[in-house]
């Protein structure tokens, strides 16, 4: 069969990324032809600034060498500008007469610098800052000339100015607005930035209007530029003038083709031009829902979606991105996102420490964070950005918000907050043991651009995520990219575009009862899902429709299938349930006997007041359970694990309440309860709180007049202190409120979301409304939970009822 013809106009990052995505999923569908106006293969345009600054070379920023085009059979026309496209005959014409026919056309012409319409703009030595040629001109000029003027104090202008200064020129930045980077920074941060750049040697003309550029011949009208003149008549010497006053989408060709353009080539959510269904457009030239993006992550997102449509898979929609800003000037940290200027109906939280050069402003509207502007210390930028994107209520963390995520108990990377200052051997990701050098090498060697890519390739920040800020900084300095792919809605996994919430809603509204039913209803892309979605859906089904939906053990992780914890050598650990942490001589004897009989190598007391038997062979599991004769501790499951207690008023001379009994009652009422993630309770008998109730999903603390209830604490990756929830009088109330809170979490939590993250997402006020203010609702939730748990089997003994496939415990002999 004859292949279809795909022609791409433009050979830049967004376009070539689209081709890469296309070749990955459909390598043989098209004969591909690429026209590039520049004489270079695709390179990392963002890294031109480090090249100018002398920190990298052109060779280092090439993304796709010529051999890549050859390997994939791509016909590459370098240095050929496309001047005309005949949409009727479907032929592309280049300046030099080269033509190419197309079945599909991809326009990725990027953007064009805005050139100030002043006299002298065409003089020699007046350039824009857009490509390798401009960069080379600047590098060469710096060797022979002294005075440089950069017009425009935005991101690009400042990077150009910094680079020229490092190349030995005296640089003045002319900026018409009242402060630098006025579209990314507020006035305070803008002025701090100016001060810091002045200290490095840059000069500024803030608020100055350029009137003309003056040449050295023909009465100033020709030759090489020698000066810049302002409207107030002043002149400054200038041997080089760099125009960095903004960019415009390159739409001239598209307009000549009759494609609808409005601040970019207008495309729909599949990146198809709205004028011609054979023509797609991605990158800085494309206007999606009125926005032409200029950052890498959104453009790559576009490329991915576009590729699936070019591949005729017809899946995926691009629905827009929110973006944030960082400056690539080594040693200067600034970050901004959202509405950082504030305004009517907004409040501001500001921290200003001029001596330390730190300034932070958070803009809050209603109960939500809507903008952030950080200078000098940006390590929490990604966290604020996430809060802005998620749009969740910040009322409950408002008092801590300014001090950042790290203040809420980050661990795992030795308190580092500045990636640039770390040594290559320093560990960035404590969960997966990834050091700075490994991450930087992967970014360079594999051409990674986004946080997701780094996570996939190196596993750094892929587990607890607390080092995300550091990894983003590394991406920033190594790839120069903005780093976070930021779709407005996060898909559950790669098998679908649906979010966790959409899956939960569909299961409830459409009364779905099987995993295949969910896949069908939501048009899953994979036949059997993946290790992310299958366990999640299985949980959503059984929690939404107890006694109706069937548990599917093959969709559970091994621990919940074998009802024991797998260890690194393939053996298992067994933790029997000890109600409230109490045990007896008889239980201990049986445990000791089993340890001897099955030669169990390690016996350990757990943090949850139980006993862990480590290194049990899978073949022995059933017999060990039987011999010990104690219920399953569910220490392997996303379920209620321990209820930790102190001895309480029965023995303790300080005790005010019988915490042990309360704990045992809670545990007996709620064991066998599966949940979105593991759940731990604790009950203390007095405010000395020996059971550490302050870091549990539900913590109960006895006081003389009753019980205090705390929720959503966590002792894990990030230590999260539980919120005070309610003061209760009786043990019955403790039971009801705890059960209702658990059922709410079970019904609304997303899979693998701990209570702390669930409560953060929906807000503590919402949970209070559902549990404290709505007595009937609370009772109903508690009843629902009791209904769901009634008759639930113990998987260690009721194998058939618990759907434990006992064949797994007997290997086949070859």
């Amino acid at each position, binding site marked *: 069969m004859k292949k279809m013809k795909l022609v791409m106009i433009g050979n830049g990052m967004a376009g070539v990324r689209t081709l890469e995505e296309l070749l990955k999923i459909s390598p043989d569908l098209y004969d591909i032809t690429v026209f590039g106006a520049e004489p270079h293969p695709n390179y990392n345009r963002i890294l031109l600034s480090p090249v100018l600054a002398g920190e990298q070379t052109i060779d280092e920023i090439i993304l796709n060498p010529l051999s890549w085009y050859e390997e994939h059979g791509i016909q590459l026309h370098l240095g050929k500008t496309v001047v005309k496209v005949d949409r009727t005959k479907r032929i592309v014409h280049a300046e030099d007469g080269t033509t190419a026919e197309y079945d599909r056309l991809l326009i990725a012409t990027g953007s064009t610098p805005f050139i100030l319409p002043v006299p002298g703009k065409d003089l020699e030595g007046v350039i824009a800052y857009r490509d390798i040629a401009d960069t080379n001109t600047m590098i060469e000029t710096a060797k022979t000339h002294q005075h440089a003027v950069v017009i425009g104090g935005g991101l690009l202008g400042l990077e150009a100015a910094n680079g020229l200064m490092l190349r030995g020129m005296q640089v003045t930045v002319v900026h018409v607005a009242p402060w630098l980077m006025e579209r990314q920074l507020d006035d305070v941060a803008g002025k701090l930035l100016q001060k810091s750049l002045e200290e490095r040697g840059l000069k500024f003309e803030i608020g100055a209007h350029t009137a003309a550029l003056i040449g050295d011949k023909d009465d100033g009208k020709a030759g090489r530029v020698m000066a810049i003149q302002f409207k107030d008549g002043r002149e400054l010497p200038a041997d080089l003038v760099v125009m960095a006053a903004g960019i415009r989408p390159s739409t001239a060709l598209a307009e000549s083709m009759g494609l609808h353009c409005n601040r970019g080539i207008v495309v729909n959510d599949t990146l198809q031009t709205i004028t011609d269904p054979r023509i797609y457009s991605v990158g800085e030239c494309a206007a999606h829902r009125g926005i032409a993006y200029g950052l890498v992550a959104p453009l790559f997102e576009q490329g991915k979606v576009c590729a699936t449509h070019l591949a005729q898979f017809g899946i995926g929609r691009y629905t827009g991105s929110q973006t944030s800003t960082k400056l690539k000037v080594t040693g200067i940290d600034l970050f901004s996102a959202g509405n950082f200027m504030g305004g009517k109906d907004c409040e501001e939280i500001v921290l200003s420490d001029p001596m330390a050069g730190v300034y932070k402003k958070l803009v809050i509207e209603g109960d939500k964070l809507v903008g952030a502007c950080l200078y000098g210390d940006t390590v929490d930028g990604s966290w604020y950005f996430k809060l802005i994107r998620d749009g969740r209520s910040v009322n409950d963390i408002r008092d801590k918000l300014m001090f950042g995520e790290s203040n809420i108990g980050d661990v795992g990377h030795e308190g580092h907050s500045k990636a640039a200052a770390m040594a290559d051997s320093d560990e960035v990701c404590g969960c997966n043991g990834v050091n700075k050098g490994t991450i930087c090498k992967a970014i360079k060697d594999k051409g990674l651009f986004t946080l997701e890519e780094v996570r996939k390739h190196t596993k750094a920040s892929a587990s607890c995520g607390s080092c995300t800020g550091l990894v983003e900084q590394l991406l920033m300095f190594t790839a120069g990219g903005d780093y976070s792919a930021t779709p407005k809605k996060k898909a559950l996994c790669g098998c679908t575009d649906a979010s966790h919430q959409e899956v939960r809603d569909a299961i409830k509204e459409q009364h779905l009862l099987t995993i295949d039913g969910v896949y069908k209803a939501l048009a899953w892309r994979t036949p059997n899902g993946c*290790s992310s979605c299958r366990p999640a859906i299985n949980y959503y089904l059984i929690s939404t429709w107890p006694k109706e939906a069937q548990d599917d053990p093959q969709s559970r*992780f091994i621990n919940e299938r074998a009802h024991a914890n*797998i260890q690194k050598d393939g053996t298992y650990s067994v933790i029997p349930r000890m109600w409230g942490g109490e045990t007896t001589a008889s239980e201990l004897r049986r445990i000791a006997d089993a340890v001897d009989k099955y030669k169990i*190598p390690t016996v350990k007391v757990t943090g949850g007041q139980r006993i862990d038997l480590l290194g049990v062979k899978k073949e022995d599991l059933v017999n060990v359970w039987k011999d010990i004769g104690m219920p399953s501790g569910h220490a392997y499951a996303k379920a209620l694990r321990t209820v930790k207690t102190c001895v309480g008023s029965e023995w303790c001379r300080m005790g005010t309440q019988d915490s042990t009994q309360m704990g045992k009652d809670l545990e007996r009422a709620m064991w066998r309860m599966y949940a979105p993630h593991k759940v731990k309770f604790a009950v203390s008998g007095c405010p000395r709180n020996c059971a550490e109730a302050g870091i549990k999903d539900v913590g109960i603390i006895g006081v003389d007049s009753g019980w205090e209830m705390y929720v959503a604490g966590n002792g894990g990756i990030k230590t999260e202190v539980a919120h005070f929830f309610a003061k209760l009088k009786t043990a019955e109330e403790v039971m009801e409120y705890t059960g209702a809170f658990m059922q709410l979490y079970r019904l609304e939590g997303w899979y693998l979301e701990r209570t702390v993250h669930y409560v953060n997402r929906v807000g503590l006020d919402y949970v209070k409304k559902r549990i404290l203010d709505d007595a009937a609702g609370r009772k109903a939730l508690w009843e629902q939970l009791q209904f769901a748990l009634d008759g639930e089997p113990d998987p260690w003994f009721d194998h058939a009822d618990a759907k434990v496939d006992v064949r797994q415990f007997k290997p086949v002999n*070859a």
Partner: protein
Amino acid sequence: MSQWKLICRVDDIPVLGSRRVVRAQGVAVALFRTADDQVHALLDRCPHKAGPLSQGIVFADAVSCPLHNWSIRFDTGAAKEPDVGSTPRFACKVEGGEVFLDEAELGTLGTELPAPTAGPQGCSHA
């Protein structure tokens, strides 16, 4: 000529599940049954940290390792991108609802690869 050895019935393997086949020497062989009743056989050893693949979650074309969630392909035994590595794949025949493995492969394939270890002496208990 392959010498086929009867191992078990297809129905002895759970759908989208697996069984471990213990052999005279070497790490066990894992049998996987897909949704459409195809049976695949790999060495029960992830190329990453030697985790038992038989304990993973089974998909149409791969199994995810229970230890660190690498995906290992049934058709080649190779890890899916971006992970790199490969585990031996065993020839496997299904006939009349019965599963056969190659006698010679059972005796020799992957027998040199060590089992994973854990615990205080670092000795294997599996």
